[in-house]
């Protein structure tokens, strides 16, 4: 590993972003979409998705990998948006109230997720993923059977005809793009939702500030080595739970921002794919399971969503089948995650094996006595 060519190492480190840059370079001209259209699409998606993806950063810092449990936060956001729609609170006050109410729900969900993940150390990602699927059932129980029965819903328009349970799609016209349209700028034909971007910028500042706090430092220590963290007196389990709670709360806000832009809520599907797409985008931006930064988020959104916009068109132009491009983008979403996770796991395994070899050499050297000890020291 030591002797690895630095150029090769960089190529492997940034394999996914490089692949995507090439993909964009090939597919964007093929799609025949205009630069202005593309720029508008990407700007809209940047505003729509960045907050959600930023919510993933803090658990990475705490060494818990990609937070597949962010879906729980998204669910909290959705539940609250259904209530807000029922209460007919519109515009910015609606969004603010939604964020306010979703906070305690997301804290409860996040706490639950954190406790579960603490019981599955070393398997956080697969457990988080399954937790998301599990909570999807709980979400259905609440929204499909609880709402209108246990939780009072007065607006007949969002209820199923049987009298309880929420419809498959809800029109969020009350809050549709109210944040995006608050301050809107037209820059060379590109619509820029300034207010949304300001909120995202504020979150970035929060994350930068948070990293420097005592808690942020603790999280990094926990992320690097739980045993060391424990010996310096950090409550490892609590720190990990806090990181997941923060992530879940941010994800619920992110989902509210996402949905105010979309304008409709697919009651039972919106959250399912959110986790996959956000994680894929972050990985495309060059992040790994152990390291993710704010630039990764933005590079990721831009690259991933450009490919997303152009691939159906490129598929249609190239093979005459738009459905193919549709399947292709699902494939790259999953493929990117599989590839990045495998690459990371492979590296970690190689490192572990090197470490073991080194330990064995030190051990052998120690057995050989004085000369060996000298060798061991020289090796350091």
């Amino acid at each position, binding site marked *: 590993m030591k002797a690895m060519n630095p150029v090769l190492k960089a190529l492997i480190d940034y394999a996914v972003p490089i692949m995507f840059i090439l993909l964009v370079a090939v597919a964007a001209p093929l799609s025949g979409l205009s630069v202005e259209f593309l720029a508008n699409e990407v700007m809209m998606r940047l505003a729509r998705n960045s907050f959600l993806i930023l919510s993933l950063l803090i658990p990475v810092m705490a060494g818990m990998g990609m937070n597949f449990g962010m879906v729980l936060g998204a669910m909290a956001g959705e539940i609250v948006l259904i209530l807000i729609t029922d209460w007919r609170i519109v515009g910015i006050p609606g969004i603010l109230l939604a964020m306010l109410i979703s906070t305690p729900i997301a804290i409860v969900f996040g706490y639950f997720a954190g406790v579960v993940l603490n019981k599955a150390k070393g398997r956080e990602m697969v457990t988080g*993923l399954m937790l998301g699927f599990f909570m*999807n059932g709980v979400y259905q129980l609440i929204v499909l059977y609880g709402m209108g029965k246990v939780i009072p819903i007065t607006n007949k328009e969002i209820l199923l005809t049987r009298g309880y349970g929420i419809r498959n799609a809800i029109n969020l016209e009350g809050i549709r793009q109210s944040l995006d349209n608050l301050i809107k700028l037209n820059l060379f034909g590109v619509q820029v939702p300034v207010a949304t971007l300001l909120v995202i910028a504020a979150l970035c500042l929060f994350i930068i500030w948070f990293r420097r706090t005592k808690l942020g430092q603790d999280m990094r220590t926990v992320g690097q080595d739980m045993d060391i963290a424990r010996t310096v007196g950090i409550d490892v389990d609590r720190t990990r739970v806090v990181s997941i709670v923060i992530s879940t709360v941010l994800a619920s806000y992110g989902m509210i921002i996402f949905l105010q832009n979309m304008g409709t809520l697919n009651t039972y599907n919106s959250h399912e794919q959110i986790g996959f797409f956000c994680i894929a985008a972050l990985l495309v931006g060059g992040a790994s399971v152990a390291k993710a930064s704010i630039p990764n988020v933005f590079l990721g959104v831009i690259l991933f969503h450009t490919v997303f916009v152009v691939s159906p068109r490129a598929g249609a132009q190239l093979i005459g089948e738009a459905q193919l491009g549709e399947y292709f983008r699902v494939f790259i979403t999953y493929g990117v995650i599989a590839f990045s996770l495998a690459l990371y796991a492979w590296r970690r395994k190689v490192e572990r094996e090197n470490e073991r070899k080194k330990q064995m050499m030190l051990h052998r050297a120690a057995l050989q006595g004085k000369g060996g000890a000298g060798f061991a020291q020289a090796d350091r």
Partner: protein
Amino acid sequence: MKEKLQAVISGIGLPRLLIGLFLVSLFVIAPFVGVRVDTSINDVIARFAMNAVLVLSLVPMIKSGCGLNFGLQLGVIAGLIGAVTSLELKLIGLAGFLAAMGIAIFFAVIFGWLYGILLNKVKGDEMVVATYVGFSVVSLMCIMWLVLPYKSPDMIWAYGGSGLRTTISVEDYWFHILNDFLKIELGSHIEIPTGALLFFALLAFIIWAFFRTKLGTAMEAVGSNPEYARSCGINVDRVRIVSVIMSTVYAAIGIIVYQQSFGFIQLYNGPLLMSFPAIAAILLGGASVNKVKIWNVVVGAVLFQGILTMTPSVINNIIQSDMSETIRIIVSNGMIVYALTRKMKVRA
């Protein structure tokens, strides 16, 4: 007395006990809400025969320490290729069924071999990588089903004429070929698919016998203590690959057994989430991430399929609404989360 009770509970396992009691109570309530017990039993047996091989396919990988096979879809895909190709060749009856299995096994060996190499590279993170490998392969195959040059009019879209349909009937080919073999009818409501059950028993016996061979014991050693296995001169990586190939081949056979019973081949996103019910079933049967016995497969498949059969009919009759899908999601995924949060016991 209390300690004895606790010992019994921990012996059976709390989740299994709860689910078992739930299932028994469903059977007790059933007649009172107008659900026939005999048809219910029939359904449970039929579903067991349909799914048991898929559950069984998880065993080799758990034994070798590769964890729960979240990439089960790889084997399923091999099975789908086998089934679709056999239909394309217009092979009917036993010939078609055997051809489907032969082709499926061929692809499963190749897929399993590559998949095994990958899993060896990511030791310690097999499950999360496997999940996404499974998802990616299913979505890649979505593209392939559209572009592969299959021509049989029974399988391609009626209009347009290119690409395979999402569901393909095997009615005219090898529908119920196992189920109807030596079928026993008890009264007018219970049909025992003897052939499918015997086939499962045969496959289970092969696994049981395999773990008594030299390679089988080596596999167990690799699973329980890889360091020790290595020091005994076992080629750990090779043994793991063998286990992955076995699991993948069994999954491929499993999906064909499923299809002959169900009557349809489901392509595109059909297999996407197929690993979860199988995994939930084996965990429900008492397996853990790194420990499994054949009877876990049988108990798990019966309990899981029992719940799936009984909750829609009984619960729906009680509360007059269809909660079965939601209950299925909560039980199966909850079971997997529960198992993942158990501490891994290192066996001596």
